[in-house]
């Protein structure tokens, strides 16, 4: 059992967990997110798009790693676009980067506990929260193994554990299923559904099938803009028999992408 704080049970005073209006974010000198509008509430949101579409840059802006170059970005009711204080929003955020660095001599437990401390969790809650996060990603037996001894899939799961350790209200996962075997992917989808009950989860992936199976909402970006937001069935409905793809969802994805590239917005 974990202690539930008053802040967790307090009613939210904002309409959207994540709200972006005309968001612009630079990756280096390139404007990778260019006038993107986005609204998200609790649930699992799958972020699709071709390489270079701006998915990772969008994730980094939502994680408050990159400051927006323009537009408005509100996370958990806090304006994180300007010069304002980001700490309040950051306490409620979880973020798994596409690749992440770590101190190789840390054990999994130490890594997750350290990340919990960085997120300013109350110290007495950290050991329990870290243990629970490690259990949820199925790394209990390796909890005291050093990070440098883990396989790629285990590292990914350690990364997911640090992202969920503070029970984030907004969880951002950039390609979380890379390196996971089919069984682990199924477990991960289960974990996503579980997390989405009381948080807003955004998962970036190239696997259209993962999105259809686990996401209540599908987002698609192309060239820095949102070109589609809707449920998986709507995505499938966009696909016709002549569109590229081996499944209805892939055909829907191809059709939407082709339409976006031709200048139309779904």
């Amino acid at each position: 059992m974990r202690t539930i704080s008053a802040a967790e049970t307090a009613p939210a005073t904002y309409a959207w967990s994540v709200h972006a209006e005309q968001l612009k974010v630079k990756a280096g000198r390139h404007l990778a997110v260019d006038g993107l509008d986005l609204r998200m509430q609790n649930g699992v949101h799958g972020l699709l798009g071709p390489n270079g579409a701006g998915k990772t840059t969008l994730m980094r802006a939502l994680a408050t790693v990159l400051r927006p170059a323009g537009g408005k970005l509100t996370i958990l009711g806090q304006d994180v676009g300007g010069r304002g204080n980001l700490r309040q929003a950051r306490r409620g955020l979880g973020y798994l980067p596409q690749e992440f660095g770590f101190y190789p001599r840390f054990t999994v437990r130490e890594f997750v506990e350290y990340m919990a401390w960085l997120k300013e969790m109350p110290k007495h809650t950290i050991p329990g929260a870290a243990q629970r996060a490690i259990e949820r990603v199925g790394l209990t037996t390796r909890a005291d193994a050093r990070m440098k001894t883990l396989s790629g899939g285990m590292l990914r799961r350690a990364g997911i554990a640090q992202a969920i350790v503070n029970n984030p209200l907004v969880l951002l996962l950039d390609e979380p299923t890379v390196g996971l075997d089919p069984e682990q992917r199924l477990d991960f989808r289960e974990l996503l559904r579980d997390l989405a009950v009381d948080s807003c989860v955004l998962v970036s992936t190239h696997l259209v099938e993962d999105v259809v199976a686990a996401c209540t909402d599908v987002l698609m970006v192309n060239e820095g803009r949102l070109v589609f937001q809707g449920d998986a069935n709507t995505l499938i409905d966009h696909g016709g028999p002549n569109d590229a793809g081996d499944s209805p969802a892939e055909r829907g994805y191809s059709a939407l992408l082709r339409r976006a590239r031709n200048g139309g917005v779904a």
Partner: protein
Amino acid sequence: MRYLGLHLRARRIPAALAAAASGTLVLWTVVAVFSEVPDADISLVTLLVLLLAAVVAPTLGGHDDALDRTSALRWLPRRAAHLLVALVIILALVLVTLLTGARFGPAALVLRDAAGLLGLTALGAVALGTARSWFLPLAWTLPVVMTPFAGASVPLQALTWQTQPHDNRTAAVVATVIAVAGLVAYGVRGSALRDIRSAA
């Protein structure tokens, strides 16, 4: 204390302390064995302080800048404390030699160079990222050590502040300005984002 311990390990502090102590011992031994006078040459003092500032460089950031940035901690006082503690450790390591037969001093010169070179390292971290933060102090100091300047030209004294005598006012002013600039810039901004995905 457990989490402070984790933080120090994540910032590679134990390795930095070992490297700093070993570097000091090596240079101290060189002077103790080969020097005919007990006081180390000013260029050797500057080189030792440069080495110690470079050892601090990798501790200015963690293993993942992006994950560090998502931290809710109040970084400004922590970063400022990091630099000040590093300064105290450098001073302690160098000034303890004043009690021995091979002295790296005087204290005023060590303080000036340590503060200035740490400030340069901090500015390097803000501009170039943690991994390359030592470029800036090294690139400025090595040519100065190799071609010391002893004339009266104030601009040239400012340019070669690291190896000026300990009572040179121009050198003291330059070192102070760099130290304060480094402290403020690093305290407010931290290391530049140079993680695995930053080029994407």
